[in-house]
C-alpha cells in the first residue's frame, strides 16, 4: 500500500499477460469454425464463435444464393471467403459442378441466363436456349444469381464470416488467459466452463 502506483506498475511488468501456443487447437479451428475452442475446453466460446461465423456465412447464402461463392468469377472475394474453411470450399464445389455449365460459343464455364436451361452433351454440362413453350412453362437455369447491391451485400457477409473466422482461429492458436480460469485459481467456488 505504501508504494501505491509504483508497486502496481512493477507487478504488472513482472507478470506480463501470458499467451500460449496451441497448434492442435489451431489445426482443429481450421477444419471447422469454433472447433478450436472446444480443444481449449471453452465450449461456450466455441458455440458462440461458431454461431457468429456460420450465421454470417449462411445469411450471405440466404440473401445471395449459391452464386455468392464463386471461385472462378469472383476470385478476389473468394480468397477472403475461403477463410471460413471447408463450408466455403464445399459450397463453391457444389456451385461450380451442379449449377454452372459451358457456353457452347465461348467454351467457358458460366452461370446460366434467364432463357437457358442446363443440359448435358455427353461429355460436359452445357447451356441450351429454352423454347417459347418452356419459357411459358416457367423453366430456366437451376439458380437465380443475385444482382447489384444484394449480390454485394451477400458476398460481403461471407467475407466478414471469413475475416471473423481468422480472428477465432488466431484466438484458438494463441489463446490468452481465460478470465474464468484465473478467477477459479483465486476463488474455486466461482465461474464455470467458458
Amino acid at each position, binding site marked *: 500500500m505504501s508504494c501505491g502506483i509504483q508497486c502496481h506498475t512493477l507487478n504488472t511488468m513482472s507478470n506480463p499477460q501470458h499467451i500460449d501456443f496451441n497448434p492442435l487447437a489451431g489445426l482443429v479451428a481450421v477444419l471447422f469454425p469454433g472447433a478450436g475452442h472446444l480443444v481449449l475446453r471453452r465450449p461456450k466460446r466455441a458455440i458462440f464463435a461458431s454461431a457468429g461465423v456460420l*450465421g454470417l456465412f449462411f445469411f450471405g447464402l440466404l440473401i445471395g444464393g449459391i452464386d455468392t461463392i464463386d471461385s472462378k468469377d469472383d476470385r478476389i472475394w473468394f480468397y477472403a471467403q475461403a477463410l471460413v474453411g471447408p463450408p466455403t470450399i464445399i459450397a463453391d464445389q457444389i456451385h461450380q459442378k451442379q449449377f454452372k455449365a459451358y457456353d457452347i460459343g465461348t467454351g467457358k464455364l458460366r452461370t446460366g441466363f434467364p432463357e437457358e436451361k442446363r443440359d448435358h452433351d455427353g461429355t460436359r454440362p452445357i447451356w441450351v436456349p429454352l423454347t417459347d413453350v418452356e419459357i411459358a412453362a416457367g423453366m430456366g437455369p437451376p439458380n437465380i444469381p443475385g444482382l447489384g447491391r444484394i449480390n454485394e451485400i451477400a458476398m460481403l457477409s461471407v467475407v466478414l464470416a471469413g475475416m471473423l473466422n481468422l480472428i477465432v482461429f488466431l484466438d484458438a492458436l494463441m489463446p490468452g488467459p481465460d478470465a474464468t480460469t484465473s478467477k477459479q485459481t483465486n476463488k474455486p467456488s466461482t465461474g464455470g466452463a467458458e
Partner: protein
Amino acid sequence: MTLAYTPFIDAMSVHDYWYLLIVPMAFFLAVGYKAVRCPDMKKYPQSVLSFTVQILGLMLLLAIAFTIVIGYVLPMLAPMPV
C-alpha cells in the same frame, strides 16, 4: 428446372430493403467477435448488444456524413454547370 425460389440457391428479392440487411450482419459479427474477445462470459449478452448498437450507430453516422459531403459540400465546392 422451373424458376421457383429456392432458399440458399436463389438470391432473395429484397432490393427495396437492402439497408436493413446490415442489422443481422452486425448482430452475427458481434456474436462471433465477443465470443473470443469478451473477458467475462457472464457479461456476454450485454457486450453483444452493446457492440451491435455501436456498429449500427457508427454506420448511421457514416451514412449521415457521406450524405452531407456528397449532397451539400461537394455541390458547393464544385457546382455543376446549369
